[in-house]
């Protein structure tokens, strides 16, 4: 673990212990991070990073908090990418085929280069979910894009200027709101609560003596 490797942060060489992630390597080097660091665990997409390892012709992409440093790694972070986010009122739009055309028409300019998929930090089939969006198959687009952390690496690679994460997000919201059936038991329960059905019940329940509540708690029947 104490073996050292050389990494080039924005071109400058630092020697860091080999077990570190790119993010902790930056801190080891002395960076006090403000940008490019959020959850520190692969959920928020703040730490999009581009790198190349000496001797390897391929340009690579990752999340800095999720990638272990390698020797002779040249690193540039991409803490922000200008994604296009269209404003809409979710109540007023629907899962129609035109909606993508209206909000994100550039998806129809996809040239099929697949650079987005190759670059995805989450290993999603990005081009595929864009294809689903083009065809108005929003539920498929939602499923395929579900693990997107919106780091924006895909968009940085796209010759058509597509904001893939925003397209996926719109498809997911449309699916959640309009395509998947509304939950009936949830609707019923909300009506019961708003109708006051539980007001007295909960009041009485809370009013039980402390010992009785303890007794009840310790002897709950637990759903199998």
């Amino acid at each position, binding site marked *: 673990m104490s073996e050292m490797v050389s990494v080039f942060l924005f071109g400058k060489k630092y020697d860091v212990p080999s077990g570190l992630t790119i993010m902790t390597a930056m801190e080891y080097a002395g960076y*006090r991070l403000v940008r490019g660091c959020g*959850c520190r665990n692969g*959920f928020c997409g703040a730490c999009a990073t581009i790198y190349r390892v000496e001797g390897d012709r391929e340009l690579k992409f990752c999340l800095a908090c999720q990638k272990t440093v390698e020797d002779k790694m040249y690193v540039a972070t991409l803490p922000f990418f200008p994604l296009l986010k269209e404003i809409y009122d979710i109540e007023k739009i629907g899962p129609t085929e035109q909606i993508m055309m209206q909000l994100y028409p550039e998806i129809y300019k996809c040239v099929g280069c697949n650079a987005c998929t190759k670059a995805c930090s*989450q290993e999603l089939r990005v081009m595929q979910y864009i294809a689903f969006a083009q065809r108005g198959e929003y539920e498929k687009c939602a499923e395929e894009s579900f693990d997107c952390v919106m780091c924006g690496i895909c968009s940085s690679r796209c010759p058509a200027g597509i904001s893939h994460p925003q397209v996926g997000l719109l498809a997911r*919201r449309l699916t959640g709101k309009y395509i998947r*059936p*509304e939950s009936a038991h*949830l609707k019923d329960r909300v009506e019961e*609560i708003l109708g006051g059905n539980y007001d007295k019940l909960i009041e009485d*329940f809370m009013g039980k003596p402390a010992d009785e509540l303890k007794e009840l708690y310790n002897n709950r029947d637990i759903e199998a």
Partner: protein
Amino acid sequence: MYTPEMLESIKKVEATREARMGAELRRMTADEKEKLLNEFHPDYKQEGFTTLKIGPNKGDKAPVELADILQARSWVEKLNIDLGIVDYDVDVLVIGGGGSGASAAIEAHENGANVMLVTKLRMGDANTMMAEGGIQAADKSNDSPMTHYLDAYGGGHFKAQPDLLRKLVMDGPIAIKWLEKFGVLFDKEKDGTMITTHGGGTSRKRMHAAADYSGAEIMRVLRDEVFNRKIPLVDFTAALELLLDDEGNAAGAILENMETGEHFVARAKAVIIATGGAGRMHYQGFPTSNHYGATADGLVLGYRAGAKLLYQYTLQYHPTGVAYPPQIFGALVTEKVRSVGALLVNVDGEAFMHPLETRDVSAASVIRECGVRGKGVATPSGGRGVWLDSPIIEMIHGPGTIEKRIPGMMRMFGKYDIDIRRVPMLIYPTLHYQNGGLQITVDGRTTNVKNLYVAGEAVGGIHGENRLMGNSLLDIIVFGRNAGLNASKAVEGADKPKGLNIEHVRRFMKEAEDAGIKADAVSPKLFPAYARVGR
């Protein structure tokens, strides 16, 4: 990726797996739990705590690290800011861009208020984004708000504020409905029935989820909604201190641009603290599952302005943090892994406890197993852990279950060549959640500072002294909305606050001086100091 010793132990885990499949594991009795907690839970470890010398909770117990920042110097002491020059002038100022802040902002906006949100990192760089497991609500026919109440009340050691807990469980289904309406993709059956599971300490399956990206899915949608409503958002900007008006009511905050260091005055008729948790304080040296900005800032701001803390001495250590590999040390292994069937197994392959005891009990049990019982598995960095046996999940529910139900976990370990479908994960407790925080009334306001509201993990009292999985995502929605609504209602038509000042900070510093406190540290902490070297 595992060390030879680990692989040796895994053989024992594999050897017992068949036999463990059908076996019924006993739950601990109330007495056993109490004894276990007393001996092994970090909250019961005296050295970890000290007595607060000043402020509204003077004389009360607090974690040493929290006491240090509550009683530290303030950033604004040295600043020369003209409070007469107002940079932002709004009705409601929301501090914090997580789920509670977003919910508060949306609801304040819905209610017609001029609301602004400031946050230290980007919107959504927050604990909310990281929640994997799910969100509770009693919306199934075999469940009720009363049952939910009992689970949470008992799980929190009967210390929850009853009126707050009542609101949590009664508004639970309403919160889920609100999210469904925004298009949050909950796991559902074909007919729309919510797929719900158990969490530690639940007696009904009421954990709603969006695969194991529950928090991310909620956060992405709420953030999108904040953008769609064009609610002014000032990111990379921290609140350093609250401002009060000439009557001592909350009236805004002093802000700092985290990148340029420039300061701003935000005037507001009401302020909502939604700054989240404290994992990055690393209490008692524990690693954490929390995001980079979880440094208890809101507690410091509120405390100096005179707001009271409640249960600040209880923290939640999640039983299953990653013990190995080191790159993800402390990261959370969602409880859902146990909800879907994984077992906690020691170095010899024995399942040493029921996997769904409450978190505090589970954490203490793992600490005991690795400590006095000597049944932990050693890691190269000198730590220990026990196995969370995931392959058993697919023996129970069939192949493909792991990829479908806990894909995030599969990916997280997969990056280090650990395939959790085939081998177990090594875990140890990690600092996860701040049970305590600022005390509020049921309308979301602090008990003693007017126009100061609090929502989310910065609140203390909703859950008592321990929180059940899934009740926090619920509370940020319920109490986030509640704070946004009540704050905007309370200031409707009110005049702009007059006489903005930071006298309370000066008074607090005077009190510190009189108490003989000589602090070097300056707080709020804003970020942990991880840079090894530097200015």
